């Protein structure tokens, strides 16, 4: 027993000394450690391939299992980040659209030399009330008065119905009770445009003999003292003419220049220009689409003369 223990200790000492010798040799660079590792890699590679082929199919599963908690946290963090970014992006897009709308309304006001107060639509009348009204974030404190015109980038939008200190209510152009005196572009024919409750307006000409064509554009005629409507503000374009034989008036369907369901920034005209802009505020007329024409050249050929029949020759 004692001999065994002594032998074991001697053996251990020998192994430790061997290890230290190996360490010393390796530290001094006298041991081909790289070569040895290369040999072990060569010997071990078939076993590695074997384990790898077994492990590969389950590696994704085990990876998912062990990183379940971390993945969940990561997903939750990414979702939060994603929603924050989406919110930021939608806010940016909204601001971008508002800037675009504001720019176009400023362009129109600048062209007409109107003094305007920009406003943001803060509420839209509910469909249940059967009236097409909007609430703006400007009021009497901003110089807004009843019956002032509201314009957007394309032209007329509404007129003010009532004003409070910091907000006002306006009647949209497509409301059935809305009426505006208009003038046809270039011809100057007078008429009245009224809302229909839908996306299009109705134009009734006072003179039934006047010429009315699709594509003609309509501007506000202007009210007395320019309230509620200023002259020259674009209203819309004729899309359909109703021909009724024997009628006292002529009517047409007008599509407004402004999409009334997609506006968020408008401007209230608080003072008019000294001159009537006439048709200057109308957007440039659309270029006519060229109609393709086809020319066919036909070369005349000599007409064959009828040959005398056999019976004729016999006679």
């Amino acid at each position, binding site marked *: 027993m004692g001999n065994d223990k002594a032998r074991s200790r001697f053996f251990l000492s020998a192994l430790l000394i061997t290890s230290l010798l190996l*360490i010393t040799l390796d530290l001094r660079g006298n041991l081909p450690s790289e070569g040895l590792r290369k040999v072990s890699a060569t010997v071990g590679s078939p*076993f590695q391939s074997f384990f790898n082929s077994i492990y590969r199919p389950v590696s994704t599963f085990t990876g998912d299992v*062990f990183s379940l908690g971390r993945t969940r946290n990561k997903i939750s963090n990414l979702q939060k980040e994603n929603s924050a970014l989406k919110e930021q992006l939608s806010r940016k897009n909204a601001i971008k659209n508002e800037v675009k709308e504001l720019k176009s309304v400023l362009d129109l006001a600048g062209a007409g030399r109107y003094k305007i107060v920009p406003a943001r639509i803060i509420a839209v009348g509910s469909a249940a009330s059967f009236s097409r009204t909007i609430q703006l974030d400007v009021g009497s404190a901003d110089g807004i008065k009843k019956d002032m015109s509201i314009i957007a980038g394309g032209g007329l939008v509404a007129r003010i119905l009532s004003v409070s200190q910091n907000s006002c209510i306006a009647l949209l152009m497509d409301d059935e009770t809305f009426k505006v005196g208009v003038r046809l572009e270039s011809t100057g024919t007078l008429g009245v445009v009224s809302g229909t409750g839908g996306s299009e307006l109705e134009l009734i000409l006072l003179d039934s003999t006047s010429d009315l064509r699709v594509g003609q554009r309509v501007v506000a005629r202007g009210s007395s003292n320019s309230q509620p409507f200023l002259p020259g503000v674009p209203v819309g374009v004729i899309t359909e003419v109703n021909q009724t034989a024997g009628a006292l008036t002529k009517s047409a369907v007008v599509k407004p220049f402004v999409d009334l369901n997609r506006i968020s920034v408008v401007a209230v005209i608080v003072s008019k220009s000294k001159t009537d802009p006439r048709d200057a505020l109308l957007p440039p007329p659309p270029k006519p689409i060229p109609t393709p024409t086809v020319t066919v050249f036909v070369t005349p050929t000599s007409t064959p003369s009828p040959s005398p029949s056999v019976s004729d020759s016999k006679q």
Partner: protein
Amino acid sequence: MRKSLLFVLSASLILTFQEVVISRIAFPFANPSIFLIFIISWAFLEEQWLAALQGFLAGIILDISPLSVGVIGHWAFVLAAVSYGVSELGVQLRGSRRSPLTLTVVVTAGIFFTLIFFVISGALINSNQGYGFMQTVPGVVFWSLVFTPLISPLIIKVKRAADGVGTSVE
């Protein structure tokens, strides 16, 4: 002799399994060392001089492993010493050396001392496997507590089979 050969073969396979499978799974804290669990468990069940020899051979396998970057002989030195110590303890606890609880406690303690000894000896021989290696110690020890009861029955069976081979030859 054949017993040691079987041990070397098993150790090599377990090291390959460790490198190819276990090390690629992202365990929390640190990866368990199935290889060390096997070596220490085996040493606990082995005679002292054979444990020292097998520890030395296992260390050499680890030292010349392609993924190893340390000094050759370092792991051989550490594992020979620790295996001898663990085997000495196993001889003292001969009656309960195959009990899963004893085996788990001894193997976990053995792994802890192995890692500490490796870091200290590494510092003495100017090896640069120090602080980073030290950080993994708690994780490795924790996983050895978890894995030893699971794999020790298999190690005991292999050891018994190897003992049968050994006794028939030696």
